[in-house]
């Protein structure tokens, strides 16, 4: 492209791109679940620190955990995690090489369902383990 010619390609700005399409809004929301994941990790970390500082510190941490704001916060966290789980397995078919069973390619919805089922099974197992450790 010589400098003298009449071409003047116009670059459109990207600002606010994610507001322009519901698909992108959803994408940003599911990316946003990262904040919940981080928050939960930091809560756990704080708990371990409290534990390290002895029984008294732990008990006040526990009291905090039992307070209504904490329960509310965890309720919200739970929703975030569930949304993360849902979207994670929704994208999964796009990230896996084709899986063939009996010569037929496994459908995307089947993969998503299998992922969600795996999450359910894993969750039940973890919960059962927690219950065993606690009793």
């Amino acid at each position: 492209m010589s400098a003298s010619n009449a071409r003047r390609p116009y670059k459109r700005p990207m600002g606010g791109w994610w507001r322009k399409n519901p698909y992108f809004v959803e994408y940003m929301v599911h990316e946003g679940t990262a904040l919940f994941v981080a928050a939960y990790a930091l809560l756990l970390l704080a708990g371990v620190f409290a534990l390290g500082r002895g029984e008294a510190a732990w008990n006040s941490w526990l009291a905090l955990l039992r307070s209504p704001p904490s329960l509310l916060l965890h309720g919200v966290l739970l929703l975030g995690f569930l949304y993360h789980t849902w979207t994670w397995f929704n994208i999964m078919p796009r990230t896996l090489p084709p899986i063939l069973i009996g010569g037929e390619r496994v459908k995307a919805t089947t993969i998503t369902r299998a992922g969600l089922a795996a999450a359910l099974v894993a969750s039940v197992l973890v919960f059962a383990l927690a219950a065993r450790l606690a009793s």
Partner: protein
Amino acid sequence: METFKADVAIVGAGGAGLRAAIAVAKKDPKLKIALISKVYPMRSHTVAAEGGAAGVVQAHDSLEHHFHDTVAGGDWLCEQDVVDYFVAHCTEEMVQLEHWGCPWSRKPDGHVNVRAFGGMKIERTWFAADKSGFHMLHTLFQTSLQFPSITRFDEHFCVDLLVEDGRAQGAVAINVASGEFVMIEAKSVVIATGGAGRVFRENTNGGIVTGDGMALAYRHGVPLRDMEFVQYHPTCMPGTGLLFTEACRGEGGFLVNKDGYRYLQDYGLGPAEPTPRNKAMELGPRDRLSQAFWYEQQKGRTIEGIHGSAVHLDLRHLGHKKLRERLPQICELAEEFMGIDPAKAPIPVRPAVHYTMGGILVDGNCASPLPGLYAAGECSSVGIHGANRLGSNSLSEICVFGKVAGDHAADFARSAKSAPSATLQKQADAAQMRALSLVRGNKGTERISVLRREMAETMERGCGIYRLGDEMQKTCNELENLRERYKRVKVDDTSSVFNTEWLLAIELGYQLQVAQAMAVSALNRKESRGAHQRLDDYKLRDDANYLMHTLATSAGDGPPVISYGEVKITHLPPGVRAYGAAGEAADAASKAKSAEGKAP
């Protein structure tokens, strides 16, 4: 003006142009190639071909069969020596494409599969589902990317050839993005600009198929050969003209009229059998099928819709699974454009213009009478299609003769010297002035769209499936008139950047000249042969007077001068073109005769 010094300039980057470019690059990596195309190569209309490409592979098939089908299909207006070369090289080219990655459909054992096609005695059509042209074009384009000697001029619109010392020495093109002109000097030039179906209204061709290269060569005195032969494809979408490939019938589809009757059996193509038989019924040649439609329409046995009459292409009996597997693109087209699921309902279809058999006169080496100028692909008339092309022969043609053109253009370039740039520059400047006069100070009054529509309408009236002397005469007159009006064509867009209206105006100029060559050639052929069928006093083939090629030579502003050239007949003398049971009987008879001849 920017200039580029090439050894070989190739105008057109469809299947033929790309194959030629690769041939040159492989022949001699030192030759600089300029590959010019008004669209990005992968947009070229080869992309739209669905059915497949011919090449003999089966043990019970033979080159002689392919030869016979082609020559008889072309109603004996083929150059038989060229057809000989053609059939002998098709398969090799198909294998070459395979080596370059073309995903030809396969048999379970991993060998390439072939399907049946209209007018072909034995299955020999290589296919990539029903996207054969798409895969061929992308394979060729992508393969071409590995050759550094090919310089592409994508979206460069060729406005003229440079002719100096009585030979072709380059081309002038508009860089569409900037509106600037480029002069490409070359020692030889290959034209591979595709067909001209767009001079008609209802057609299967893309918007870019406007006969540019034919007009370019014609303006420089190269005759256009056999332009009256324009193929109607029998199964197209009413209104848009979009194509439902012949493979629909190859796979076993039926054509039925409004009563659900397989009417082809009434036109010498029977007997009607439930499964496809080669060269019979739905697998008859295109001209016959389109003609049968015309008669059904006259008899009032067609289905009337908002886009005129239609018959039904019935694929329901093939079942959902086979349809998805073998004809996915057809399913898509029917569903998206017409809201029809071919597994559940028949598809309304009608004939539309599909292919230009004629083109730039070239010999078997793709050389035109103008030294240094070569042509290949649909824009050329190398002599293999005669009066009617067989489906799947042209995709093979673009490979076989794309290579031939490239090879010979390379040889020519190696032995030629280029003319002094200054004289070429003068020509290029003149071409630039001519093209620019359309946008600079244009005081025209004639709208492009109006002229284009009138051209297409008159072509359809005069040069349709069936033709009448006085109608053709009228069309010739109207075209003369349109060319006169074209001198006052109006272009509103005066900008330089991507000025498509300007290009449309130039294309219209090309189209009008090509249309005129078609109409005048048609008017002068006083017989019926292949795709040229007259209903006046010349209903029959007339080998005594018209076993000849029509040559239309430009006479400036006026209509072309028509002359005739001999047809090369090597070993298959003109015979009866029969299909269906009649064809088989004729075959048997000729076999018996030759057996008799051989008997001691």
